[in-house]
């Protein structure tokens, strides 16, 4: 194997239901591959060290930090980003109705985690304490996000 062959890769993945092929340097982060190589800029990049959760996408149905994945790790996976979530989705509607955002930077990541939690029908308390715990929001103080979660997941949350 030459150096060039191992420093760059063609990555094939299913992105929001569409098969895409991306040629990227192997050190490219998944977040950058999605934003720059594919051009889907709904996924936001915050801290790039796994702390903030802004870049959360679903890989094979599970919410993960896309800044902590290398592009080649997406090969053969199914990735879902915020662009795949319909405006009518109960989570999106609840975030809208309760104004669960202010500047919106962290919102795409939070919504992706909530979409995954909604599929698993997690109890609202677990969503607030555990799932939302993986996201930082510097604007809202989380009050309206928690209200949105209670609405979308039932009223058992606190």
């Amino acid at each position: 194997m030459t150096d060039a062959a191992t420093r760059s890769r063609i990555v094939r993945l299913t992105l929001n239901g569409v098969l895409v092929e991306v040629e990227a340097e192997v050190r490219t982060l998944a977040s950058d591959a999605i934003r720059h190589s594919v051009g889907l800029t709904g996924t936001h990049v915050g801290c790039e060290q796994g702390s903030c959760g802004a870049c959360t996408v679903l890989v094979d149905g599970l919410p993960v930090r896309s800044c902590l994945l290398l592009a080649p790790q997406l090969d053969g996976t199914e990735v879902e980003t915020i662009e795949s979530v319909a405006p009518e989705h109960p989570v999106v509607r609840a975030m809208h109705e309760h104004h669960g955002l202010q500047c919106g930077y962290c919102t795409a990541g939070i919504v992706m985690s909530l979409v995954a939690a909604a599929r698993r029908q997690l109890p609202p308390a677990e969503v607030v304490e555990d799932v939302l715990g993986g996201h930082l929001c510097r604007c809202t103080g989380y009050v309206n996000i928690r209200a949105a979660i209670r609405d979308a997941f039932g009223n058992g949350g606190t």
Partner: protein
Amino acid sequence: MKPAPFVYIDPVSVKEVLAALGAQDGEAAVLAGGQSLVPLLNLRLARPSLVVDLRRVTELRDVTLSHTHLVVGAMVTTAQLAAHPQVGACGAGLREALLHIGHPQIRNRGTVGGSIAHADPAAELPAVLVALDGWVELAGPPGRREVAAADFFTGPFDTARRPDEIVTAVAFPRFTGSSTTIELAPRHGDFALAGAFVALDADGDARIALFGVAERPVRAGEAERLVRACGTASEVGEAVTAALSPADDVHASGRYRAHVAGVLVRRALDTLRTTGAAA
């Protein structure tokens, strides 16, 4: 920030991984779930010339329960083990430790083998492994070997693993008593300022291991002896604090960490003795 350039390979077998590591003169990094390694790459605190990704090595994804141990393949994720039907064979404390790790988004990628091999002094799983006297299975050029947890963790981010070896599995002994993992972190999911795994067996013997308070996970020997001698939870907690001398850092003073460790062990013991008596 972005990682510095490296060569990336993703072999499909342990044999191929070892061949790649053996042929490498420079620094090589083994990528499991990447939840510790990729931040280090992004911050350029790690600049390996070769990254060997284990994602396609399917032989590292098994969980097997024997008569004595739960043997967890290195690439089993934290979330998978926490949800595994047999995780309870090692006591409630193991599952609690798994759920203390980061957030769901981290646990979906982070692996058991990665946490053990990374050996963060504040990590939960190394302490559980040390407390239960588990072992780590390594594969290297001469073959496989097993290292007892007590000998595996040698310092902060430092283990008995040689650069040409990889962790292939982690063996947690079965435990039938009561156990719990408790920690204090500034925010839910953060690294613990101090944490404790406490296990009590039917004979009243205790296994206590602490994390975040020393250069590696440590057993609290004096405190364990006090439990056997029917010491009160407060006495045991004080013994924990007295035996520790953590370094000061930006997150907390060493004295505070030692104090917190004692309080956590006291609370854990109270909980275990109460629930044990009720059961």
